[in-house]
């Protein structure tokens, strides 16, 4: 697996900060975990002291989540020890971890949606009075905790009725309710606005000041610099570096440690030469799965030969917007037209036939059928068209030929086009999706989170392809939660908030702070 010699495991760990007489809360030595032949964690050693905020920095797939899941007892390590407050006995399960003072806020909230805040809060360590759950006590506890930590929540609200930001507060309070010494936060800012993020970082600092140690997973460099005392950088399952004194570090230092080479922050691309308007959205209104307005009067034009990046905090209607344009979700108002033709009511197939290519946000869910061969996945939305089918009869020869060509062109690493697509790595799966969508030479390419969960090599490849598509004259709508991706690819940036466009700026003039403020929305103050 060690493919380049320069990469060496970083086992020393950063030195303890000055005056290192603080108690060592967590010490990990030689931790390894593999899934089959994939080494998710290799010989990891690190240390967290009391009252510290330690960031675990790394790309998607670097093994951060695997690491913290082992600390929380969700996964058992293959080798190595995790010792908490000097106690190195194996952490059997989350219950054991909780008992030993570890709390975790999961990337995907571990809250039961149909239960109230109080019920969720007490789940797993319920207090019982006379055989009956002490719900009043739980409500009281919620109120006390939320006052103490300045995180306001209503104990009787049902989780599914709460906005994500509030749900996260519940998660944090839940973890804090159990007398935690070590709080693990797994990508806590992914769903937050910049302002909410700042608020969270503030809470973290206060907790640390109160003696709680925090392990904080992220791949956002700014957050590391803003909140952490120290950081470890993970790459390919190993700790490849660490920084003790973050004040003297720059983002680019951290970034190169993360990816193991100099990061290309800007994708090389020529000046855009926009042509006619291809996509025109006027006053679009779309509801989400729960029937609430998600896209609410959205206007945007995308012209041939330009990349328009749609920046926004996740959950502001991006998903519904993209699905509605793609014909996968009905709109309730407004129009979408493609090169002057109204496609508002077109279904997914007609939209595709009209010349819309769509790289979906969740490739596992929408983009591929894991059990199907790569070849079948490459014709997933054209299986019934010539030459892949003649009438109702499919032509397997043509499907295969097509697949072999695309495998070459898009560098899909697989021994055989008949291999199930589910067996590919994330990057290669994404290449299958991109190959399928781009090979149809669409007028409009919609790429939603095109590089999520994809390795660096594939990211560069996909970015290059997107630019090439633009240069070939396609209109590109790029939707991404990664502001960096938006900034580096877009010729023009639109900011979405609350289901509508709140600002449009030219790509080269874009200022990230300003965009962050816009993403949060002017009225979005707590």
């Amino acid at each position, binding site marked *: 697996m060690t493919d380049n010699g320069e990469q060496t495991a970083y086992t020393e760990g950063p030195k303890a900060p000055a005056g290192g007489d603080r108690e060592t809360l967590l010490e990990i030595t030689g931790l390894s975990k593999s899934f089959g032949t994939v080494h998710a964690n290799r010989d990891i050693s690190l240390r967290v002291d009391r009252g510290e905020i330690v960031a675990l920095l790394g790309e998607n*797939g670097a093994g951060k989540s695997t690491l913290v899941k082992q600390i929380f007892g969700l996964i058992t390590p293959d080798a190595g020890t995790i010792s908490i407050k000097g106690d190195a006995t194996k952490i059997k399960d989350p219950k054991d971890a909780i008992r030993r003072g570890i709390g975790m806020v999961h990337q*995907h909230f571990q809250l039961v949606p149909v239960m109230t805040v109080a019920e969720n809060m007490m789940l797993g360590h319920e207090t019982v009075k006379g055989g009956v759950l002490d719900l009043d006590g739980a409500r009281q506890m919620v109120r006390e905790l939320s006052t103490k930590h300045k995180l306001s929540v209503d104990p009787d609200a049902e989780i599914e009725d709460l906005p994500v930001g509030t749900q996260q507060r519940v998660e944090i309070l839940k973890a804090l309710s159990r007398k935690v010494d070590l709080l693990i936060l797994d990508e806590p800012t992914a769903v937050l606005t910049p302002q909410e993020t700042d608020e969270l970082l503030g809470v973290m600092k206060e907790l640390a000041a109160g003696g709680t140690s925090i392990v904080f997973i992220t791949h956002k460099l700014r957050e590391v610099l803003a909140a952490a005392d120290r950081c470890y950088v993970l790459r390919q*399952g190993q700790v490849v570096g660490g920084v003790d004194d973050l004040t003297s570090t720059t983002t680019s230092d951290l970034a190169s440690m993360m990816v193991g080479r100099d990061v290309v922050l800007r994708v090389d691309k020529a000046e855009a030469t926009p042509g006619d308007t291809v996509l025109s959205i006027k006053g679009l209104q779309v509801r989400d799965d729960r029937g609430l307005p998600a896209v609410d009067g959205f206007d945007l034009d995308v012209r041939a030969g330009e990349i328009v990046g749609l920046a926004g905090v996740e959950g502001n209607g991006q998903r519904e917007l993209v699905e509605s344009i793609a014909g996968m979700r009905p709109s309730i108002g407004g129009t979408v037209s493609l090169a002057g033709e109204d496609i508002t009511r077109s279904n997914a197939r007609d939209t595709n036939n009209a010349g819309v290519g769509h790289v979906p946000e969740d490739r596992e869910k929408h983009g591929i*059928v894991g059990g*199907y061969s790569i070849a079948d996945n490459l014709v997933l939305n054209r299986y019934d068209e010539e030459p892949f089918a003649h009438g109702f009869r499919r032509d397997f020869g043509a499907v295969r030929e097509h697949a072999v060509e695309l495998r070459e062109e898009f560098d899909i*690493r697989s021994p055989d086009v008949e291999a199930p697509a589910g067996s590919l790595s994330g990057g290669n799966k994404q290449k299958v999706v991109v190959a399928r969508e781009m090979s149809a030479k669409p007028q409009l390419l919609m790429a939603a989170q095109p590089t999520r969960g994809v390795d660096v090599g594939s990211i560069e490849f996909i970015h290059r392809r997107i630019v090439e598509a633009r240069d070939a004259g396609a209109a590109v709508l790029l939707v991404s939660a990664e502001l960096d991706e938006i900034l580096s690819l877009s010729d023009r940036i639109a900011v979405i908030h609350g289901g509508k466009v709140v600002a449009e700026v030219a790509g080269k003039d874009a200022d990230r702070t300003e965009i962050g403020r816009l993403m949060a929305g002017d009225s979005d103050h707590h």
Partner: protein
Amino acid sequence: MADPDRPPGKDAPAPAADPAPVDTTKAAPVVAERGAAPPPTGVLGFLVRHQAIVVPIIAVVLAFVIGAILIRAQGFNPTYAYQRLFTRSFLTHDGLLATMQKTTPLILVGLAVAIPLKVGLFNIGGQGQLMAGGIGAAWVAYALRDLPGPLLVIVAIVVGVLLGAMWASIAALLKTTRGVHEVISTIMLNSIAVGLIDWLINGGPLADKGQPFPTSHSVPEGARLTPLGILPWGLPVALILAVLVAWMLKRTTLGFELQTVGRNKFAAGYAGISTTKSTLIAMAISGGLAGLAGVFELLQIDPYRYQNGIAGSLGFDGITIALLARGNPLGTIPAAILVGAMRAGAPSLQFELGIRPEIVDVLLAITLLMVSLPVIAKWIFRRHATKQTQLAGSWGA
């Protein structure tokens, strides 16, 4: 790792399905699924590749072994019993005819369960759909009794198939428009079919009031499909349909659509394949096949009347067969022959040995148990075992 905290669900990828970034920097083949070793070669490799066949065969063998213990415990000689069962079902004219006659509807109801399985639907309503087809044919056969026989047969088949398809479509429509789980709706529809038909033939509009028991009028002689030697008319039809269904699923765009919906309905939606349409089509085909089974039960088997009990346990046998065949349409043929032969031979077990005919139900139950438990496949193939279908996920919708 992509999305490692995703809540468990059928679409959730295996945690490590997304290996570390290493694989793009080298040209080595990408590793398949979690922890999969290279596919074995030799005999084991052969068995692994054909486990869809191997597992049911082992299950049947195990069931017969356990059955032998049961027969022995009842004081009979199992070898002799199995020998008689086989002789009767395959080596005598009447027995073979009975086997073939029983196999016919079994293939059809097996397909009626297997097709919806491909779309991720579990059709427990084969019973009701078969009854709908049978009563439809009985109605036509009486209402149009003056038509020439062959024409009447064709009309009866058309009507029976349509009624079966309609009955199944109720469940499909409830599913697509109102999200009612098909297992619940088909169970309810089975009971409704029993009651409605009982009313029809017991003093109701289709009753033959000249008979002292609830029955429809008998099929006119000209429209009766008396067997050609040992070959009932319906058997070749059923065989052809099994092949057609297999071909449809594998080779046609419709088959691709159905299977895409079954494997990943979100991707299907993305690709512009309508889940609604696929659900309706699959259930209609399925109901039509079950309905056709009902038509043949009426037209090709003495007493050529629709009576209570004509459907027997065929609807549930269909489930047994589809599971034995592991959802493979062609697999329904051997599975149906197995079940058909056992049912055909059961009376002779009692006649010649005195073993209760219910032994057959026990054998089938054990077979089903063996074939359903993933344990056997896991035991033999270890990690090469293919994954079982999950149907229960959309429960309650």
